[in-house]
């Protein structure tokens, strides 16, 4: 073998003669990017990304077709090379049309792979759907009931009919797993030996504990109340989140292996210094915002005047209060709505919410406002309480003085202040007043000790925490959730605590943080106005499933849940409404990867804006979206059967295809190799509808279970679900090839028909019935032992399987030969 010696990026390399620069570089672990390279088959329409600079050559050379020669001096990433690649990538990206991530996914504060879990629901993989949600949100039971649903506001389905009921689907999978007693078996990392204290067992504390425990840390939650759950338990009444749901949710989290210390109030029962002394390496503050902002009008120190969080806590603890028949709720936030609805359930006949602005300006989610209104709650708008000093009339206990408000002139930002209308005083006779004017974490300075005193507070009674590091003003002490951000939604507390957990992990392990999701994203349109309606030409109207709920006249009589949840059929139908905006090639797209690597700003250089071609779903196994095709031709050239044709009517001035067709010929055997070679998501496997994003995906090498060829394949597994099967081009006997059964014949693994429990037939003629292993084994052992005793070993026989492993076959025949004492052992495919 003759060799050549050349220099690549300054390194001297001795290579086999006759190889291209690209191959030589690959063998020396120098990566040269390319979008069109297929070994042994030269591209007719080269991507020109693989160019390199060769000394003495005026022009950049394509490394895939330039042979490495003796004495060559090659630069693979010089300025000129990078500039050329960037130019090429920008040109290719300019016509690439699609969404990397779906808008729902991008809008979710938790960045949850929404499209992914909807797709799991559509496939009936509810366990995996929940696991996917819990990758980023460990309290799906609650969030599935109370989320403000930012995602649904951006659902593209709005352009056709109504958004997908995303949150109801989340609740469905959580409830389904609960009612089926599913153990999610979520793994955690090896123990790190680090101990972390979490103060507060509400959504933020539970979230931080969950993610820190998964990282292998030893976590202890300190909770002031006798039970965990925080706002989920003491903030939301049962009709929103039933207590048994909170219990189940909390237990699901605790099953990870988390220590808890209940009825331990920070500042009273322990201090930050105590935690340090106990050996905790870091502390997370997630105590929420539970202290009500006082009702600051004259004469509020009367009986029957409550503040919201306090009131809800008492209701949720089951305290019986004498509330009379008329009540006023001061404030227009979400908590005010829950207070009002709880008052109705307590038998108060007339509940009035008083708010100084218009209804649409209420901070409460409009969905919550509507739900309150449905239950007969009245709204007194543009009015503000001025005091409780007036003497009540004889039928009521309190008289609330009010003043009418009007809007002032708009300020510079256009915001209009509210002003009292002079002389517009009025009064409302009530028996109970509850004020809901906001909450804070700490009123004044946190009590406890020296470290507590050093905690910097923000105006409004929240802990200061560095937005990047989540760290407070005390080293090793972190904060998140409402305690740091003020009263927000549960999902926002989760996000904040998850971020804090990531920061705490980096702090105690002295390592880098897990990187945030890259914001690079192709989109078919950021706002609804940008999205071409041509996208939806083929899609018919299909309205969302209606959430079954109890009518208000019934539901207000008790604290049972109002919304009853989707049935399985409804969930599947609803999941089928998903438009699947995001790209299922997210995890393998080379164009996106190179755009990111080479820092292409597609927002500036441009991307496709309208669909030029219809998506072709006529192939039995493969969906073709020519709008994503960059005409690299890898599919065509990778096909072993010559069964694929990619053609363009003409080329535009930048060398891009016009009038593109991607056609499968008659002789296509659906082996799917072209999909694996597609450089974008132009080709996709039909049965691979769950996009894989930042989730942990394991790749397991194994042997195909079908014919005797023994093809080596790679199982891509997320959670406990096999996502797809691929093959390694460097491993025989198949060298990257698989047949249709190898690539597509694995749905049976997760098929609902799988046997999941032993069955026995107690007597001939009776049906098979499910039993536990113990009983099945006893039944079998007794039957076999009886036969053995009565008729001898040769009255028993075993038929083993060419489908099972050699180890199983060996153990099986060993059992019969050495255990039973017979050679009656055979397998059906012996021949």
């Amino acid at each position, binding site marked *: 073998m003759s060799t050549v010696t050349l220099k690549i990026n300054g390194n001297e390399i001795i290579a086999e003669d006759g190889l291209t620069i690209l191959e030589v570089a690959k063998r020396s672990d120098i990566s040269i990017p390319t979008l069109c390279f297929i070994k042994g088959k030269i591209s007719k329409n080269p991507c020109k990304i693989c160019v390199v600079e060769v000394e003495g050559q005026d022009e950049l050379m394509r490394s895939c077709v330039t042979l490495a020669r003796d004495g060559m001096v090659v630069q693979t990433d010089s300025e000129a090379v990078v500039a050329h690649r960037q130019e090429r990538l920008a040109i290719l990206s300019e016509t690439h049309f699609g969404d990397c991530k779906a808008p729902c996914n991008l809008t979710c504060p938790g960045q949850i792979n929404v499209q992914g879990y909807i797709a799991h629901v559509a496939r009936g993989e509810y366990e995996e759907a929940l696991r996917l949600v819990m990758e980023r949100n460990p309290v799906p039971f609650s969030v599935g009931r109370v989320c403000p649903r930012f995602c649904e506001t951006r659902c593209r389905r709005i352009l056709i009919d109504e958004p997908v009921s995303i949150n109801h689907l989340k609740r469905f999978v959580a409830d389904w797993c609960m009612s089926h007693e599913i153990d999610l078996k979520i793994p955690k990392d090896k123990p790190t030996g680090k101990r972390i204290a979490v103060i507060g067992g509400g959504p933020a504390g539970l979230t931080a504990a969950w993610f820190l425990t998964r990282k292998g840390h030893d976590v202890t939650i300190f909770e002031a109340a006798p039970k965990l759950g925080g706002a989920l338990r003491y903030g939301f009444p049962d009709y929103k989140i039933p207590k048994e749901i909170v219990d189940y949710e909390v237990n699901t989290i605790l099953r990870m292996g988390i220590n808890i210390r209940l009825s331990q109030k920070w500042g009273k029962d322990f201090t930050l210094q105590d935690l340090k002394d106990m050996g905790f390496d870091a502390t997370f503050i997630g105590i929420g915002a539970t202290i009500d902002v006082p009702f600051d009008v004259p004469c509020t120190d009367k009986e029957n005047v409550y503040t919201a969080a306090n009131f809800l806590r008492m209701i949720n603890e089951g305290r019986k209060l004498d509330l009379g028949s008329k009540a006023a709720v001061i404030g227009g936030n979400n908590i005010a709505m829950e207070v009002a609805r709880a008052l109705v359930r307590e038998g108060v006949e007339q509940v009035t919410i008083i708010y100084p602005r218009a209804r649409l300006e209420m901070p409460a989610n409009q969905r919550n406002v509507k739900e309150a209104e449905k239950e007969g709650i009245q709204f007194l708008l543009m009015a503000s309480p001025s005091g409780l000093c007036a003497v009540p009339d004889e039928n009521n206990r309190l008289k609330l003085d009010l003043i009418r408000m009007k809007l002032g002139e708009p300020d510079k930002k256009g915001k209009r202040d509210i002003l009292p209308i002079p002389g517009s005083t009025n009064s409302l006779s009530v028996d109970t007043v509850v004020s809901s004017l906001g909450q804070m974490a700490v009123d004044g300075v946190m009590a406890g000790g020296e470290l507590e005193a050093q905690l910097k507070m923000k105006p409004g009674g929240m802990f200061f925490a560095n937005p990047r590091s989540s760290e407070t003003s005390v080293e090793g002490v972190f904060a998140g959730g409402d305690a740091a951000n003020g009263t927000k939604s549960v999902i926002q507390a989760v996000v904040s605590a998850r971020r804090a957990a990531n920061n705490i992990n980096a702090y105690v392990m002295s390592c880098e943080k897990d990187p945030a999701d890259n914001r690079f994203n192709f989109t078919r349109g950021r706002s609804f106005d940008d999205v071409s309606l041509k996208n939806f030409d083929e899609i018919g109207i299909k309205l969302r499933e209606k959430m079954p709920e109890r009518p208000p006249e019934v539901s207000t009589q008790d604290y049972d849940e109002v919304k009853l949840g989707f049935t399985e059929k409804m969930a599947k139908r609803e999941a089928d409404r998903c438009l699947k905006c995001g790209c299922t090639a997210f995890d393998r797209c080379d164009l996106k990867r190179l755009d990111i690597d080479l820092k292409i700003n597609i927002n500036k250089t441009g991307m496709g804006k309208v669909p030029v071609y219809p998506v072709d779903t006529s192939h039995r196994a493969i969906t073709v979206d020519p709008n994503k095709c960059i005409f690299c031709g890898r599919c065509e050239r990778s096909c072993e059967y010559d069964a694929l044709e990619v053609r363009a009517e003409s080329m535009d001035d930048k060398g891009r295809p016009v009038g593109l067709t991607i056609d499968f010929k008659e002789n296509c055997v659906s082996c799917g190799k072209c999909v694996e070679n597609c450089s974008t998501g132009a080709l996709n496997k039909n049965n691979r509808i769950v996009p894989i994003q930042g989730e942990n995906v394991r790749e397991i090498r*194994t042997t195909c279970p079908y014919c005797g060829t023994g093809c080596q394949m790679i199982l891509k597994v997320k959670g406990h679900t096999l996502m797809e099967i691929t093959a390694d081009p460097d491993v025989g006997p198949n060298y990257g090839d698989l047949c249709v059964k190898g690539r597509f014949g694995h749905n049976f693994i997760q098929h609902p028909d799988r046997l999941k429990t032993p069955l026995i037939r107690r007597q001939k003629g009776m049906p098979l019935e499910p039993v536990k292993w113990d009983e099945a084994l006893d039944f079998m052992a007794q039957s076999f032992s009886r036969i053995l005793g009565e008729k001898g070993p040769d009255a028993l026989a075993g038929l083993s399987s060419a489908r099972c492993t*050699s180890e199983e076959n060996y153990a099986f025949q060993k059992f019969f030969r050495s255990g039973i004492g017979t*050679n009656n052992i055979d397998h059906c495919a012996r*021949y």
Partner: protein
Amino acid sequence: MTGLVTVLGSGAMTNTINGIVDSDVMLVIGSNTTETHPIIGLRMLAAAKKGSKLIVADPRRIKLCDSADQWMQQRPGTDGALINALCHVIIRDELEDKEYIAERAENFDAFKESIADCTPEWAAKITNVPATVIEEVAHIFAKADRAGIYYTMGITQHTSGTDNVCSLANLAVITGNLGKAGAGLNPLRGQNNVQGASDMGCNPTFFPGYQRCDDETARKKFAEIWDAPITDKPGLLATEMGDAIMEGKLAGLWIMGENPILSDPNSAHAKKAFEQLDCLVVQDIFLTETAEIADVVLPAASFAEKNGTFANTERKVQRVRRAVPPPGDARDDLSIINMVSNRMLGNRHGGYQGTTDPIYHTVPPLASDVFSEITKCWVAMEGMSYDRLEEGALAWPCPDTDHPGTPILHESGFPRGKAWLSAITWDGPAENPDDEYPLVLTTGRVLYQYHTGTMTRRSEVLENSAPSAYVEMNPADAEELKLADNEMVRASSRRGSIELAVRITERVDKGIVFIPFHYKEASANLLTNDALDPHCKIPEAKVCAIKVEKM
């Protein structure tokens, strides 16, 4: 296997998949390779493209015929006659490898005598393949430097299955095609681990590693390894078990991972027998037709849910690795065997007891422990270990830890010393068409389905691609019966009757029909014949007489 053992002393594919491209001639007989072994088919097509001559012998015009240099369309069940005629021509025209025969074979004269009458003209009458074609193929095959033979069930699932294999072995030996790359005698295994199951002694006459149960030394060896007395009484073959049940000799049967009610010929008979058992235990991943009549059903794991090894058709031992846990309370098959063993035998046998892990619930000994025990039982695997398999597959024999494995068998000799050229006389199939059942039925697979379909029919892409049963029929036969394409018909044999669509096609010759056997709603094996090969007791699934009626 029995056939290969007779001639060579060992039964397995002699060569490699990778070596196919190096062959000068490929004789593919009774194997619809592109559909049953698509990747091997792909290599054959690549070899043909590179200039290797492809000879196909198949009653149907299978896809390989499109790329073949020669296609011999023999009548089903006449393979033996065809192969004997090939040998006859080779010897008649003195094309045999005399040096090789002298050095490595015995019984040549008796063999030559036995095929003296097997002239191409004689074979042409039986097989329908023109004598000139037989002569031409014989010449191409014999003159090639490297000629490989590839076959599957089309050769073996006959009452003459063993003889057919012996004939092929004779052909390979007299042309000197054993022991070199790009040649050989290559039975393509139809299932992922047929080779491994055979290697592991799941067979009434052999212990693991083809060590005979009637051999005193072997029995002693295994009695020692297993620490238990081993009986010298021969066991029952799978195909003999039905009768043993009916005679009351067999009362308990444990079936692991098979669905004989659908896969066995004359399956109604198998079902009747199983229903007579005192206790039928079926261990499977689905409630198969066989599991439905069981007394105990044990939920097992799929390939993706367990650790272990499969031995592929080239004798390569390859790892199977666990990717996901089994669903619900299902357990991997090894753990199930261990649990049953624990329950019935206590801790006496190999310490089959231990704790379970919370996610996979495995019960030791684990696959890796069992594998090391296997390597102690059989010298051909003695050099293997899971550590070595991490680096890549190893083909047996691999007798020591430095041994690279043996991709090509018989390079320097045969296990039995010299190859035994066996004298074969050709007998036709057990059942021939007559006035009542005028058509010859042959069965097989399609690309998109697999075996009894328990897996493929639950994978949407596959099921949608080939969702229903059909019978392929020549246009001439269809016209006689006045059938239109896709019309539903009734197909019946002496054993049963099914309803399915007719597919009118030139792929089959007049008088011959083909039905894939994957579909339980129209199970071809209700029609097929369970007459057995007298040597290895394989049933004649590939040929029987049927009639097709308009409905």
